[in-house]
């Protein structure tokens, strides 16, 4: 398995945990009216996973003169 695939698995796991925690937090809120910290934590987890993924993709795409097609653009 490549490192990229491993890291995608890691991010998918974090996002999955965030979704699970959000669902449990919603159930808890429906039952008790209390905002369980799951809401805050899991929302942060989801946002962080998304941001991290975007940042890694951005870092992986070459944007300089070595980028494919950059000669055509010039």
């Amino acid at each position, binding site marked *: 398995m490549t490192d990229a695939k491993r*890291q995608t*698995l890691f991010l998918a796991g974090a996002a999955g945990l965030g979704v699970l*925690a959000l669902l449990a937090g919603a159930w808890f809120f429906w039952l008790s009216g*209390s905002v369980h910290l*799951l809401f805050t934590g899991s929302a942060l987890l989801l946002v*962080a996973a998304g*941001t991290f993924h975007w*940042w*890694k993709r951005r870092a992986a795409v070459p944007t300089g003169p070595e980028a494919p097609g950059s000669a055509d653009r010039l």
Partner: protein
Amino acid sequence: MEYDAAMFFASIVLLLPVLAVAGLVFLLLRWLRFVPRGRAGIPAYGLIALGGYALVFLASAYQMLVSDPAMLQKKYLGQTYGTPLTLRSYEHSGFQDPNDEWIYRLAPDVAAGLRRRCLPGFHDPGQCHLFYGEDERWIASAWLEGDMLHLQDGLH
């Protein structure tokens, strides 16, 4: 509100253990190459710490909404009548003397079966008491109001 305060306090107490365990998990995942090396690994550490908090609070929600009430029903009523799917309300109150109340909507035939076990000596209109117990520190009760099963357990 008491619950929110208790959870906020717990989250502060748990901060150092969560950060420490997240550090170990981070090192393991970096060694297994699930997280990148270098600067890109820093957000991964944050993700792991947040995931640790999510796991802690998932476990506490499971305990409060599923395992504790099931265990108390078995202890006080002899059987688990209310399930997570029939749970309609949960309330946690008190800080040093915590008290929990769960309310379940039972199927009409299950409630009718339980109504045959009403305890004598309680004269609250519309209520059928199924269990009552207390000592100098602990207090618990279970009663039916219509098809709603109320379960209370706490300290006083």
